[in-house]
Protein backbone atom coordinates (compact mmCIF):
# COMPACT_ATOMS: atom_id res chain seq x y z
CA UNK A 1 0.00 0.00 0.00
CA UNK A 2 1.72 3.14 -1.19
CA UNK A 3 2.50 6.05 1.05
CA UNK A 4 2.21 9.57 -0.30
CA UNK A 5 5.37 11.35 -1.40
CA UNK A 6 4.64 14.17 1.05
CA UNK A 7 4.65 11.67 3.88
CA UNK A 8 7.94 10.15 2.77
CA UNK A 9 9.40 13.64 2.42
CA UNK A 10 8.40 14.37 6.03
CA UNK A 11 10.46 11.39 7.18
CA UNK A 12 13.36 12.38 4.96
CA UNK A 13 13.52 15.56 7.03
CA UNK A 14 13.83 13.71 10.33
CA UNK A 15 17.07 12.77 12.00
CA UNK A 16 18.20 9.19 12.34
CA UNK A 17 17.56 9.28 16.06
CA UNK A 18 14.05 10.66 15.60
CA UNK A 19 13.18 7.90 13.15
CA UNK A 20 14.61 5.25 15.45
CA UNK A 21 12.73 6.65 18.45
CA UNK A 22 9.53 6.73 16.40
CA UNK A 23 9.85 3.06 15.45
CA UNK A 24 10.84 1.84 18.90
CA UNK A 25 8.41 4.05 20.82
CA UNK A 26 5.50 3.35 18.53
CA UNK A 27 6.04 -0.40 18.50
CA UNK A 28 6.53 -0.58 22.28
CA UNK A 29 3.26 1.18 22.96
CA UNK A 30 1.52 -0.98 20.37
CA UNK A 31 2.87 -4.13 21.97
CA UNK A 32 1.81 -3.00 25.44
CA UNK A 33 -1.66 -1.70 24.65
CA UNK A 34 -2.51 -2.14 20.99
CA UNK A 35 -2.60 1.63 20.69
CA UNK A 36 -0.91 3.43 17.83
CA UNK A 37 -0.75 6.74 19.70
CA UNK A 38 3.01 6.91 19.82
CA UNK A 39 3.16 6.73 16.05
CA UNK A 40 1.08 9.93 15.80
CA UNK A 41 0.82 12.29 14.11
CA UNK A 42 1.83 9.76 11.43
CA UNK A 43 -1.51 8.00 11.57
CA UNK A 44 -0.92 6.29 8.20
CA UNK A 45 0.49 3.44 10.31
CA UNK A 46 -3.12 2.56 11.12
CA UNK A 47 -3.82 1.82 7.47
CA UNK A 48 -1.94 -1.45 7.77
CA UNK A 49 -2.98 -4.66 9.45
CA UNK A 50 0.24 -4.57 11.45
CA UNK A 51 2.09 -1.30 12.20
CA UNK A 52 5.45 -2.77 11.23
CA UNK A 53 4.15 -3.09 7.67
CA UNK A 54 3.89 0.69 7.58
CA UNK A 55 7.56 0.98 8.45
CA UNK A 56 8.40 -1.47 5.70
CA UNK A 57 6.26 0.43 3.19
CA UNK A 58 8.00 3.66 4.14
CA UNK A 59 11.37 1.97 3.61
CA UNK A 60 10.30 0.64 0.20
CA UNK A 61 8.92 3.95 -1.06
CA UNK A 62 10.83 5.08 -4.18
CA UNK A 63 11.41 8.56 -2.72
CA UNK A 64 12.64 7.30 0.65
CA UNK A 65 16.15 8.66 0.88
CA UNK A 66 19.20 6.55 1.63
CA UNK A 67 19.76 8.27 4.99
CA UNK A 68 16.14 7.55 5.92
CA UNK A 69 16.52 3.93 4.92
CA UNK A 70 19.70 3.72 6.93
CA UNK A 71 17.87 5.22 9.90
CA UNK A 72 15.06 2.71 9.55
CA UNK A 73 17.58 -0.13 9.46
CA UNK A 74 19.15 1.13 12.66
CA UNK A 75 15.70 1.52 14.17
CA UNK A 76 14.93 -2.09 13.31
CA UNK A 77 18.18 -3.15 14.95
CA UNK A 78 17.10 -1.30 18.09
CA UNK A 79 13.72 -3.00 17.90
CA UNK A 80 15.44 -6.36 17.92
CA UNK A 81 17.47 -5.43 20.97
CA UNK A 82 14.25 -4.30 22.68
CA UNK A 83 12.94 -7.85 22.46
CA UNK A 84 15.65 -9.15 24.75
CA UNK A 85 14.56 -9.73 28.33
CA UNK A 86 17.33 -7.62 29.85
CA UNK A 87 17.10 -4.64 27.52
CA UNK A 88 16.61 -1.49 29.64
CA UNK A 89 14.50 0.11 26.90
CA UNK A 90 12.13 -2.83 27.11
CA UNK A 91 11.48 -2.63 30.84
CA UNK A 92 7.80 -3.24 31.46
CA UNK A 93 7.36 -5.57 28.51
CA UNK A 94 6.08 -8.96 29.54
CA UNK A 95 6.68 -12.17 27.61
CA UNK A 96 3.50 -11.74 25.59
CA UNK A 97 4.47 -8.24 24.50
CA UNK A 98 8.01 -9.31 23.74
CA UNK A 99 6.70 -12.15 21.61
CA UNK A 100 4.55 -9.80 19.56
CA UNK A 101 7.49 -7.44 19.11
CA UNK A 102 9.75 -10.30 18.17
CA UNK A 103 7.48 -11.48 15.40
CA UNK A 104 7.28 -7.94 14.08
CA UNK A 105 11.06 -7.58 14.29
CA UNK A 106 11.64 -10.86 12.45
CA UNK A 107 9.16 -9.86 9.79
CA UNK A 108 10.66 -6.50 9.00
CA UNK A 109 14.25 -7.67 9.38
CA UNK A 110 13.61 -10.16 6.60
CA UNK A 111 11.58 -7.79 4.44
CA UNK A 112 14.24 -5.08 4.39
CA UNK A 113 17.18 -7.52 4.59
CA UNK A 114 18.46 -5.88 7.73
CA UNK A 115 22.06 -7.09 7.95
CA UNK A 116 22.56 -4.82 10.95
CA UNK A 117 20.15 -7.01 12.89
CA UNK A 118 21.88 -10.32 12.21
CA UNK A 119 23.85 -10.29 15.46
CA UNK A 120 20.59 -9.94 17.35
CA UNK A 121 19.08 -12.71 15.25
CA UNK A 122 22.01 -14.98 16.07
CA UNK A 123 21.65 -14.11 19.71
CA UNK A 124 17.96 -15.04 19.66
CA UNK A 125 18.85 -18.23 17.80
CA UNK A 126 21.18 -19.12 20.65
CA UNK A 127 19.17 -18.10 23.69
CA UNK A 128 15.58 -18.29 22.47
CA UNK A 129 15.18 -14.64 23.51
CA UNK A 130 15.28 -15.93 27.08
CA UNK A 131 11.63 -16.90 27.19
CA UNK A 132 10.75 -18.84 30.31
CA UNK A 133 8.38 -21.00 28.27
CA UNK A 134 10.70 -23.55 26.67
CA UNK A 135 8.48 -24.19 23.67
CA UNK A 136 8.22 -20.49 22.94
CA UNK A 137 11.97 -20.11 23.28
CA UNK A 138 12.50 -22.96 20.84
CA UNK A 139 9.99 -21.51 18.39
CA UNK A 140 11.54 -18.04 18.34
CA UNK A 141 15.04 -19.50 18.07
CA UNK A 142 14.00 -21.49 15.02
CA UNK A 143 12.26 -18.46 13.54
CA UNK A 144 15.39 -16.41 14.05
CA UNK A 145 17.51 -19.06 12.33
CA UNK A 146 15.12 -19.03 9.41
CA UNK A 147 15.07 -15.25 9.19
CA UNK A 148 18.84 -15.02 9.38
CA UNK A 149 19.29 -17.69 6.74
CA UNK A 150 16.84 -16.09 4.32
CA UNK A 151 18.47 -12.69 4.79
CA UNK A 152 21.77 -14.31 3.87
CA UNK A 153 20.33 -16.15 0.88
CA UNK A 154 18.60 -13.04 -0.50
CA UNK A 155 21.32 -10.50 0.34
CA UNK A 156 22.01 -9.69 -3.29
CA UNK A 157 18.72 -7.79 -3.48
CA UNK A 158 19.97 -5.15 -1.05
CA UNK A 159 21.97 -2.01 -1.82
CA UNK A 160 23.30 -2.14 1.73
CA UNK A 161 25.40 -5.26 1.20
CA UNK A 162 28.96 -4.31 2.08
CA UNK A 163 32.07 -6.16 3.14
CA UNK A 164 31.20 -5.30 6.74
CA UNK A 165 27.73 -6.74 6.28
CA UNK A 166 29.28 -9.87 4.78
CA UNK A 167 31.52 -10.35 7.83
CA UNK A 168 28.62 -9.77 10.18
CA UNK A 169 26.25 -12.15 8.46
CA UNK A 170 28.83 -14.90 8.07
CA UNK A 171 29.85 -14.67 11.72
CA UNK A 172 26.19 -14.74 12.78
CA UNK A 173 25.52 -17.84 10.71
CA UNK A 174 28.56 -19.60 12.13
CA UNK A 175 27.39 -18.79 15.61
CA UNK A 176 24.01 -20.35 14.89
CA UNK A 177 25.66 -23.69 14.19
CA UNK A 178 26.62 -23.86 17.85
CA UNK A 179 23.20 -22.99 19.19
CA UNK A 180 21.50 -25.58 21.36
CA UNK A 181 18.43 -25.03 19.20
CA UNK A 182 20.29 -25.92 16.03
CA UNK A 183 19.30 -29.33 14.67
CA UNK A 184 21.18 -31.50 12.23
CA UNK A 185 18.21 -31.21 9.86
CA UNK A 186 18.91 -27.48 9.55
CA UNK A 187 22.45 -28.03 8.32
CA UNK A 188 21.65 -27.95 4.58
CA UNK A 189 19.84 -24.65 5.09
CA UNK A 190 22.77 -23.22 7.03
CA UNK A 191 25.24 -24.48 4.45
CA UNK A 192 23.29 -22.84 1.66
CA UNK A 193 23.17 -19.55 3.56
CA UNK A 194 26.92 -19.63 4.20
CA UNK A 195 27.72 -20.51 0.60
CA UNK A 196 25.50 -17.70 -0.66
CA UNK A 197 27.26 -15.21 1.61
CA UNK A 198 30.88 -16.27 1.17
CA UNK A 199 31.23 -18.85 -1.58
CA UNK A 200 35.04 -18.66 -1.51
CA UNK A 201 34.99 -20.31 1.93
CA UNK A 202 32.92 -23.28 0.79
CA UNK A 203 35.34 -25.83 2.21
CA UNK A 204 35.17 -24.21 5.65
CA UNK A 205 31.40 -24.21 5.42
CA UNK A 206 31.42 -27.87 4.51
CA UNK A 207 33.66 -28.60 7.46
CA UNK A 208 31.15 -26.85 9.71
CA UNK A 209 27.95 -28.30 8.30
CA UNK A 210 29.04 -31.57 6.72
CA UNK A 211 29.24 -33.67 9.90
CA UNK A 212 25.75 -32.53 10.88
CA UNK A 213 24.42 -33.45 7.47
CA UNK A 214 26.04 -36.85 7.68
CA UNK A 215 24.57 -37.35 11.14
CA UNK A 216 21.17 -36.32 9.90
CA UNK A 217 21.28 -38.70 6.96
CA UNK A 218 21.77 -41.43 9.51
CA UNK A 219 18.56 -40.29 11.21
CA UNK A 220 16.62 -39.65 8.00
CA UNK A 221 17.96 -41.86 5.20
CA UNK A 222 15.27 -40.61 2.81
CA UNK A 223 16.82 -37.17 2.84
CA UNK A 224 20.02 -38.52 1.36
CA UNK A 225 18.22 -38.85 -1.95
CA UNK A 226 17.51 -35.11 -1.88
CA UNK A 227 21.07 -34.08 -1.10
CA UNK A 228 21.53 -33.25 -4.78
CA UNK A 229 19.55 -30.07 -4.07
CA UNK A 230 22.15 -28.90 -1.58
CA UNK A 231 24.95 -30.02 -3.89
CA UNK A 232 23.36 -27.96 -6.67
CA UNK A 233 23.38 -24.90 -4.43
CA UNK A 234 27.08 -25.38 -3.83
CA UNK A 235 27.87 -25.78 -7.53
CA UNK A 236 25.66 -22.84 -8.49
CA UNK A 237 27.30 -20.46 -6.05
CA UNK A 238 30.83 -21.73 -5.51
CA UNK A 239 31.93 -23.93 -8.39
CA UNK A 240 35.48 -22.67 -8.74
CA UNK A 241 36.10 -22.64 -5.03
CA UNK A 242 34.82 -26.19 -4.81
CA UNK A 243 36.99 -27.47 -7.66
CA UNK A 244 40.09 -25.58 -6.51
CA UNK A 245 39.77 -27.00 -3.04
CA UNK A 246 38.48 -30.42 -3.97
CA UNK A 247 41.63 -32.02 -2.59
CA UNK A 248 40.58 -30.81 0.89
CA UNK A 249 37.45 -32.92 0.86
CA UNK A 250 37.30 -36.27 2.57
CA UNK A 251 35.13 -38.91 0.91
CA UNK A 252 37.02 -42.17 0.65
CA UNK A 253 34.71 -44.14 2.90
CA UNK A 254 30.99 -44.21 3.40
CA UNK A 255 31.43 -42.52 6.76
CA UNK A 256 33.84 -39.86 5.50
CA UNK A 257 32.88 -36.29 6.28
CA UNK A 258 32.16 -35.14 2.71
CA UNK A 259 31.04 -38.45 1.27
CA UNK A 260 27.41 -37.28 1.20
CA UNK A 261 28.41 -34.30 -0.92
CA UNK A 262 30.42 -36.26 -3.46
CA UNK A 263 27.62 -38.80 -3.81
CA UNK A 264 25.15 -35.96 -4.28
CA UNK A 265 27.35 -34.06 -6.73
CA UNK A 266 27.84 -36.99 -9.04
CA UNK A 267 24.65 -38.91 -8.48
CA UNK A 268 21.93 -39.29 -11.11
CA UNK A 269 20.21 -36.05 -10.00
CA UNK A 270 23.42 -34.26 -9.14
CA UNK A 271 24.76 -31.20 -10.90
CA UNK A 272 28.07 -32.71 -12.02
CA UNK A 273 29.19 -35.51 -14.28
CA UNK A 274 32.35 -37.48 -13.73
CA UNK A 275 34.59 -38.13 -16.71
CA UNK A 276 36.99 -40.98 -16.16
CA UNK A 277 40.60 -40.64 -17.11
CA UNK A 278 43.48 -43.07 -17.24
CA UNK A 279 44.62 -41.85 -13.87
CA UNK A 280 41.81 -42.68 -11.49
CA UNK A 281 42.98 -40.03 -9.06
CA UNK A 282 42.54 -37.26 -11.62
CA UNK A 283 39.12 -37.50 -13.17
CA UNK A 284 37.48 -34.60 -14.90
CA UNK A 285 34.13 -33.18 -14.00
CA UNK A 286 31.72 -31.16 -16.05
CA UNK A 287 28.62 -29.33 -14.89
CA UNK A 288 25.58 -30.89 -16.47
CA UNK A 289 24.30 -27.41 -17.22
CA UNK A 290 27.52 -26.39 -18.97
CA UNK A 291 29.07 -29.44 -20.54
CA UNK A 292 31.59 -27.38 -22.48
CA UNK A 293 33.42 -26.68 -19.23
CA UNK A 294 35.57 -29.29 -17.54
CA UNK A 295 37.61 -29.23 -14.37
CA UNK A 296 40.11 -31.68 -13.05
CA UNK A 297 39.36 -32.81 -9.49
CA UNK A 298 42.43 -34.60 -8.35
CA UNK A 299 42.10 -36.54 -5.14
CA UNK A 300 43.66 -39.68 -3.73
CA UNK A 301 40.31 -40.62 -2.22
CA UNK A 302 39.22 -41.68 -5.68
CA UNK A 303 41.62 -44.62 -5.40
CA UNK A 304 40.05 -46.26 -2.41
CA UNK A 305 36.60 -44.96 -3.19
CA UNK A 306 34.19 -47.78 -2.72
CA UNK A 307 30.61 -47.89 -1.54
CA UNK A 308 31.26 -51.28 0.12
CA UNK A 309 33.86 -49.96 2.54
CA UNK A 310 31.99 -48.52 5.49
CA UNK A 311 34.37 -49.27 8.31
CA UNK A 312 35.18 -45.59 8.81
CA UNK A 313 38.83 -46.46 8.93
CA UNK A 314 40.40 -43.31 7.51
CA UNK A 315 43.87 -44.69 7.99
CA UNK A 316 43.36 -47.68 5.74
CA UNK A 317 45.64 -47.48 2.71
CA UNK A 318 45.43 -48.86 -0.78
CA UNK A 319 48.08 -49.36 -3.38
CA UNK A 320 48.36 -48.98 -7.15
CA UNK A 321 47.26 -52.57 -7.65
CA UNK A 322 43.75 -51.54 -6.61
CA UNK A 323 43.52 -48.89 -9.29
CA UNK A 324 41.58 -51.02 -11.71
CA UNK A 325 39.30 -52.28 -8.96
CA UNK A 326 38.76 -48.72 -7.79
CA UNK A 327 37.73 -47.51 -11.21
CA UNK A 328 35.31 -50.38 -11.50
CA UNK A 329 33.94 -49.59 -8.07
CA UNK A 330 33.33 -45.97 -9.05
CA UNK A 331 31.47 -47.06 -12.16
CA UNK A 332 29.35 -49.47 -10.19
CA UNK A 333 28.64 -46.94 -7.52
CA UNK A 334 27.29 -44.28 -9.82
CA UNK A 335 25.36 -46.83 -11.86
CA UNK A 336 25.81 -44.57 -14.83
CA UNK A 337 25.86 -46.38 -18.11
CA UNK A 338 26.54 -43.10 -19.84
CA UNK A 339 29.97 -43.04 -18.22
CA UNK A 340 30.80 -46.45 -19.59
CA UNK A 341 29.64 -45.51 -23.04
CA UNK A 342 31.89 -42.44 -23.08
CA UNK A 343 35.05 -44.46 -22.73
CA UNK A 344 38.32 -43.02 -21.49
CA UNK A 345 39.00 -39.37 -22.22
CA UNK A 346 42.63 -38.57 -22.80
CA UNK A 347 44.01 -35.26 -21.58
Amino acid at each position, binding site marked *: *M*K*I*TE*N*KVAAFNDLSSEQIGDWIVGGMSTWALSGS*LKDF*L*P*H*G*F*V*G*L*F*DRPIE*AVEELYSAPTCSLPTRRAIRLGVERLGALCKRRCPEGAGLGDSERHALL*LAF*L*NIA*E*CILCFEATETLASIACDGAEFADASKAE*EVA*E*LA*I*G*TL*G*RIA*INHERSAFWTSEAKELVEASLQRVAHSSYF*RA*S*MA*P*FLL*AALVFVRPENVVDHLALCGPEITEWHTQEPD*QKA*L*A*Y*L*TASNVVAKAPLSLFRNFSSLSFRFASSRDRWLVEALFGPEGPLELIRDRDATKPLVTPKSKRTQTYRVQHDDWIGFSPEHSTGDEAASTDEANLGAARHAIDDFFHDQAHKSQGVVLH
Partner: protein
Amino acid sequence: MPNIVKEVISRLTGGQRGKVFLCNLEAAIAGGLIDPTAVRAAIDRIDPNDISLMDEDDCMGYLKPLLQDPGAGLVRQNDSTAYLPYFLKGDRLMTVLRDPDYYSYYCDSRLCISGHDFAGRKPGSSIRAFRKSAISSPITWVAPKWLLSVKSSSSSAEEVRDILGLVHYGKNTALVALHFRPPSTQRCFRPTAIEAIPNARFRQSDPSNAAERRWGATVDLQLLDCSPPGATITGAPELTLPSVALAGCSDVEFVQLGETATDRDTASSDRKFLAHLLNGSKIETIVSRVEKYLV
Protein backbone atom coordinates in the same frame (compact mmCIF):
# COMPACT_ATOMS: atom_id res chain seq x y z
CA MET B 1 -22.43 20.39 10.90
CA PRO B 2 -20.01 19.79 13.77
CA ASN B 3 -16.48 20.89 13.00
CA ILE B 4 -14.86 17.55 13.63
CA VAL B 5 -17.13 15.74 11.18
CA LYS B 6 -16.56 18.41 8.56
CA GLU B 7 -12.84 18.29 9.14
CA VAL B 8 -12.66 14.50 8.88
CA ILE B 9 -14.69 14.41 5.68
CA SER B 10 -12.64 17.23 4.25
CA ARG B 11 -9.43 15.29 4.94
CA LEU B 12 -10.83 12.14 3.40
CA THR B 13 -11.80 13.82 0.16
CA GLY B 14 -8.14 14.80 -0.26
CA GLY B 15 -7.06 11.33 -1.37
CA GLN B 16 -8.15 8.33 -3.41
CA ARG B 17 -8.58 6.01 -0.42
CA GLY B 18 -10.72 8.58 1.32
CA LYS B 19 -12.98 9.15 -1.68
CA VAL B 20 -13.42 5.39 -2.17
CA PHE B 21 -14.29 5.03 1.49
CA LEU B 22 -16.84 7.85 1.36
CA CYS B 23 -18.53 6.35 -1.72
CA ASN B 24 -18.71 2.94 -0.05
CA LEU B 25 -19.79 4.44 3.27
CA GLU B 26 -22.65 6.20 1.53
CA ALA B 27 -23.69 2.99 -0.21
CA ALA B 28 -23.46 0.97 3.01
CA ILE B 29 -25.53 3.47 4.98
CA ALA B 30 -28.10 3.65 2.19
CA GLY B 31 -28.24 -0.14 2.16
CA GLY B 32 -28.78 -0.37 5.92
CA LEU B 33 -25.49 -2.12 6.56
CA ILE B 34 -23.89 0.66 8.61
CA ASP B 35 -25.44 2.71 11.37
CA PRO B 36 -24.73 6.41 10.67
CA THR B 37 -25.38 7.31 14.30
CA ALA B 38 -22.61 4.99 15.40
CA VAL B 39 -20.29 6.44 12.74
CA ARG B 40 -21.01 9.91 14.02
CA ALA B 41 -20.41 8.80 17.60
CA ALA B 42 -17.02 7.33 16.66
CA ILE B 43 -15.96 10.50 14.88
CA ASP B 44 -17.16 12.65 17.78
CA ARG B 45 -14.67 10.86 20.03
CA ILE B 46 -11.77 12.20 17.99
CA ASP B 47 -9.69 14.90 19.64
CA PRO B 48 -9.32 17.62 16.98
CA ASN B 49 -5.75 18.22 18.17
CA ASP B 50 -4.86 14.66 17.18
CA ILE B 51 -5.75 15.19 13.56
CA SER B 52 -4.76 18.80 13.15
CA LEU B 53 -1.42 17.86 11.56
CA MET B 54 -2.70 14.89 9.58
CA ASP B 55 -2.97 14.45 5.86
CA GLU B 56 -5.64 12.26 4.25
CA ASP B 57 -3.77 8.99 4.78
CA ASP B 58 -2.93 9.83 8.37
CA CYS B 59 -6.57 10.69 8.96
CA MET B 60 -7.77 7.45 7.39
CA GLY B 61 -5.24 5.43 9.36
CA TYR B 62 -6.30 7.17 12.54
CA LEU B 63 -9.97 6.50 11.80
CA LYS B 64 -9.58 2.84 10.91
CA PRO B 65 -9.12 1.37 14.40
CA LEU B 66 -11.82 3.66 15.76
CA LEU B 67 -14.38 2.60 13.19
CA GLN B 68 -13.38 -1.08 13.19
CA ASP B 69 -13.58 -1.37 16.97
CA PRO B 70 -16.31 -3.98 17.55
CA GLY B 71 -17.46 -1.96 20.54
CA ALA B 72 -18.29 0.96 18.28
CA GLY B 73 -21.13 -1.08 16.80
CA LEU B 74 -21.05 0.55 13.38
CA VAL B 75 -21.88 -2.51 11.35
CA ARG B 76 -25.22 -4.28 11.40
CA GLN B 77 -27.10 -6.99 9.53
CA ASN B 78 -24.12 -8.46 7.76
CA ASP B 79 -23.87 -11.90 9.41
CA SER B 80 -23.63 -14.40 6.54
CA THR B 81 -22.86 -17.50 8.57
CA ALA B 82 -25.96 -19.29 7.32
CA TYR B 83 -24.78 -18.86 3.74
CA LEU B 84 -21.29 -20.24 4.20
CA PRO B 85 -22.12 -23.68 2.76
CA TYR B 86 -23.40 -22.01 -0.42
CA PHE B 87 -20.27 -19.93 -0.57
CA LEU B 88 -18.01 -22.96 -0.16
CA LYS B 89 -19.89 -25.46 -2.35
CA GLY B 90 -18.03 -28.23 -0.63
CA ASP B 91 -14.62 -26.74 -1.30
CA ARG B 92 -12.25 -24.81 0.91
CA LEU B 93 -11.86 -21.14 1.68
CA MET B 94 -8.94 -19.22 0.30
CA THR B 95 -7.09 -16.19 1.57
CA VAL B 96 -3.84 -14.66 0.38
CA LEU B 97 -0.87 -13.36 2.32
CA ARG B 98 2.60 -12.13 1.62
CA ASP B 99 5.40 -14.67 1.64
CA PRO B 100 7.33 -12.98 4.49
CA ASP B 101 4.15 -12.90 6.57
CA TYR B 102 3.75 -16.64 6.02
CA TYR B 103 7.21 -17.21 7.45
CA SER B 104 6.73 -14.78 10.33
CA TYR B 105 3.26 -15.75 11.48
CA TYR B 106 2.18 -19.11 10.11
CA CYS B 107 4.94 -21.48 9.14
CA ASP B 108 6.15 -24.47 11.08
CA SER B 109 9.45 -22.81 11.75
CA ARG B 110 11.55 -25.94 12.09
CA LEU B 111 10.09 -27.59 9.02
CA CYS B 112 10.70 -24.55 6.85
CA ILE B 113 14.42 -24.67 7.45
CA SER B 114 14.82 -28.43 7.50
CA GLY B 115 15.73 -30.79 4.78
CA HIS B 116 17.55 -30.44 1.54
CA ASP B 117 14.34 -29.22 -0.05
CA PHE B 118 13.88 -26.29 2.35
CA ALA B 119 13.56 -23.64 -0.34
CA GLY B 120 9.87 -24.19 -0.89
CA ARG B 121 9.35 -21.01 -2.75
CA LYS B 122 8.81 -22.51 -6.13
CA PRO B 123 5.42 -21.41 -7.48
CA GLY B 124 2.98 -24.23 -7.10
CA SER B 125 4.79 -25.85 -4.19
CA SER B 126 2.66 -26.41 -1.15
CA ILE B 127 2.95 -27.40 2.45
CA ARG B 128 0.37 -28.57 4.94
CA ALA B 129 2.32 -28.13 8.15
CA PHE B 130 1.87 -24.93 10.12
CA ARG B 131 2.56 -23.44 13.51
CA LYS B 132 0.01 -24.67 16.01
CA SER B 133 -0.35 -21.18 17.45
CA ALA B 134 -1.01 -19.58 14.05
CA ILE B 135 -3.98 -17.21 14.00
CA SER B 136 -5.10 -15.21 11.01
CA SER B 137 -5.60 -11.44 10.93
CA PRO B 138 -8.40 -9.92 13.05
CA ILE B 139 -10.32 -9.39 9.80
CA THR B 140 -9.58 -12.20 7.36
CA TRP B 141 -10.81 -11.79 3.81
CA VAL B 142 -11.74 -15.03 2.08
CA ALA B 143 -12.93 -16.17 -1.31
CA PRO B 144 -14.23 -19.60 -2.33
CA LYS B 145 -11.39 -21.69 -3.64
CA TRP B 146 -13.57 -23.39 -6.25
CA LEU B 147 -14.21 -20.11 -8.02
CA LEU B 148 -10.54 -19.19 -8.13
CA SER B 149 -9.86 -22.55 -9.70
CA VAL B 150 -12.41 -21.71 -12.39
CA LYS B 151 -11.29 -18.13 -13.01
CA SER B 152 -7.55 -18.53 -12.76
CA SER B 153 -5.90 -20.76 -15.32
CA SER B 154 -2.43 -20.51 -13.86
CA SER B 155 -3.06 -19.70 -10.18
CA SER B 156 -0.19 -17.26 -10.46
CA ALA B 157 0.34 -14.49 -7.96
CA GLU B 158 -0.54 -11.94 -10.62
CA GLU B 159 -3.84 -13.56 -11.57
CA VAL B 160 -4.95 -14.29 -8.03
CA ARG B 161 -4.02 -10.79 -6.89
CA ASP B 162 -6.02 -9.29 -9.72
CA ILE B 163 -9.12 -11.45 -9.28
CA LEU B 164 -9.24 -10.77 -5.54
CA GLY B 165 -8.71 -7.03 -5.96
CA LEU B 166 -5.64 -6.93 -3.72
CA VAL B 167 -4.37 -3.66 -5.14
CA HIS B 168 -2.09 -3.08 -2.14
CA TYR B 169 0.16 -5.89 -3.38
CA GLY B 170 2.34 -4.15 -5.91
CA LYS B 171 4.94 -5.43 -8.33
CA ASN B 172 7.31 -8.25 -7.34
CA THR B 173 5.31 -9.18 -4.26
CA ALA B 174 5.70 -12.84 -3.36
CA LEU B 175 2.32 -14.24 -2.37
CA VAL B 176 1.10 -17.37 -0.65
CA ALA B 177 -2.42 -18.75 -0.80
CA LEU B 178 -3.88 -20.28 2.34
CA HIS B 179 -6.59 -22.87 1.73
CA PHE B 180 -8.57 -24.23 4.64
CA ARG B 181 -11.88 -25.64 5.85
CA PRO B 182 -13.08 -23.55 8.78
CA PRO B 183 -14.54 -25.12 11.90
CA SER B 184 -18.28 -25.79 11.86
CA THR B 185 -18.80 -22.98 14.35
CA GLN B 186 -17.11 -20.42 12.11
CA ARG B 187 -18.96 -17.14 11.71
CA CYS B 188 -18.58 -15.09 8.59
CA PHE B 189 -19.76 -11.70 7.42
CA ARG B 190 -20.58 -9.78 4.30
CA PRO B 191 -17.89 -7.10 4.03
CA THR B 192 -18.75 -3.47 4.48
CA ALA B 193 -16.94 -0.21 3.93
CA ILE B 194 -15.76 -0.39 7.55
CA GLU B 195 -13.84 -3.66 7.28
CA ALA B 196 -12.54 -2.62 3.89
CA ILE B 197 -10.67 0.45 5.12
CA PRO B 198 -8.35 1.38 3.44
CA ASN B 199 -8.61 -0.82 0.35
CA ALA B 200 -8.74 1.51 -2.63
CA ARG B 201 -10.60 -0.99 -4.82
CA PHE B 202 -13.40 -2.13 -2.51
CA ARG B 203 -16.92 -1.82 -3.82
CA GLN B 204 -19.82 -2.07 -1.39
CA SER B 205 -22.30 -3.13 -4.01
CA ASP B 206 -21.70 -4.98 -7.28
CA PRO B 207 -23.91 -3.29 -9.88
CA SER B 208 -23.93 -6.47 -11.99
CA ASN B 209 -25.58 -8.26 -9.06
CA ALA B 210 -27.03 -5.50 -6.90
CA ALA B 211 -29.54 -7.81 -5.23
CA GLU B 212 -26.84 -10.05 -3.73
CA ARG B 213 -26.90 -9.68 0.04
CA ARG B 214 -25.18 -12.83 1.16
CA TRP B 215 -21.65 -11.79 0.32
CA GLY B 216 -19.62 -9.13 -1.39
CA ALA B 217 -17.73 -9.22 -4.65
CA THR B 218 -14.15 -8.23 -5.37
CA VAL B 219 -13.09 -5.96 -8.19
CA ASP B 220 -10.98 -7.69 -10.82
CA LEU B 221 -8.01 -5.37 -11.22
CA GLN B 222 -7.08 -6.61 -14.67
CA LEU B 223 -10.62 -6.10 -15.92
CA LEU B 224 -10.64 -2.63 -14.37
CA ASP B 225 -7.48 -1.66 -16.21
CA CYS B 226 -8.41 -3.18 -19.54
CA SER B 227 -12.17 -2.72 -19.85
CA PRO B 228 -14.07 0.27 -21.19
CA PRO B 229 -16.11 2.40 -18.79
CA GLY B 230 -19.26 0.70 -17.61
CA ALA B 231 -17.99 -2.82 -18.31
CA THR B 232 -18.30 -5.52 -15.70
CA ILE B 233 -15.27 -5.62 -13.42
CA THR B 234 -16.53 -8.23 -10.96
CA GLY B 235 -13.95 -10.59 -9.54
CA ALA B 236 -14.86 -13.22 -6.98
CA PRO B 237 -17.31 -13.48 -4.10
CA GLU B 238 -15.83 -12.46 -0.77
CA LEU B 239 -16.58 -12.72 2.92
CA THR B 240 -14.77 -11.69 6.06
CA LEU B 241 -14.03 -13.83 9.08
CA PRO B 242 -12.80 -12.80 12.49
CA SER B 243 -9.41 -14.20 13.50
CA VAL B 244 -9.20 -17.88 12.62
CA ALA B 245 -7.06 -20.26 14.67
CA LEU B 246 -5.62 -22.63 12.09
CA ALA B 247 -5.42 -25.43 14.61
CA GLY B 248 -9.22 -25.50 14.59
CA CYS B 249 -9.39 -25.78 10.80
CA SER B 250 -8.99 -28.82 8.61
CA ASP B 251 -7.43 -29.47 5.22
CA VAL B 252 -5.04 -26.55 5.72
CA GLU B 253 -2.58 -25.94 2.93
CA PHE B 254 -0.22 -23.14 1.99
CA VAL B 255 0.54 -22.79 -1.71
CA GLN B 256 3.30 -20.63 -3.16
CA LEU B 257 1.90 -18.39 -5.90
CA GLY B 258 5.14 -16.78 -7.03
CA GLU B 259 5.60 -13.06 -7.51
CA THR B 260 3.30 -10.49 -8.99
CA ALA B 261 4.48 -9.00 -12.26
CA THR B 262 2.80 -5.62 -12.28
CA ASP B 263 1.64 -2.81 -10.06
CA ARG B 264 -2.09 -2.09 -10.32
CA ASP B 265 -2.05 0.82 -7.88
CA THR B 266 -1.79 3.56 -10.48
CA ALA B 267 -3.29 7.00 -10.88
CA SER B 268 -5.13 6.03 -14.05
CA SER B 269 -6.60 2.99 -12.35
CA ASP B 270 -7.62 5.22 -9.44
CA ARG B 271 -9.55 7.48 -11.80
CA LYS B 272 -11.23 4.56 -13.54
CA PHE B 273 -12.32 2.94 -10.31
CA LEU B 274 -13.66 6.15 -8.83
CA ALA B 275 -15.67 6.65 -12.02
CA HIS B 276 -17.14 3.16 -11.53
CA LEU B 277 -18.07 3.96 -7.94
CA LEU B 278 -19.54 7.35 -8.70
CA ASN B 279 -21.52 5.92 -11.61
CA GLY B 280 -22.18 9.31 -13.11
CA SER B 281 -22.51 11.20 -9.82
CA LYS B 282 -20.00 13.69 -8.52
CA ILE B 283 -17.95 13.19 -5.40
CA GLU B 284 -19.47 16.37 -4.01
CA THR B 285 -22.90 14.73 -4.23
CA ILE B 286 -21.67 11.69 -2.33
CA VAL B 287 -20.03 13.88 0.30
CA SER B 288 -23.21 15.86 0.72
CA ARG B 289 -25.20 12.67 1.31
CA VAL B 290 -22.69 11.40 3.85
CA GLU B 291 -22.77 14.69 5.70
CA LYS B 292 -26.56 14.54 5.84
CA TYR B 293 -26.39 10.99 7.22
CA LEU B 294 -23.96 12.03 9.92
CA VAL B 295 -25.74 15.16 11.12
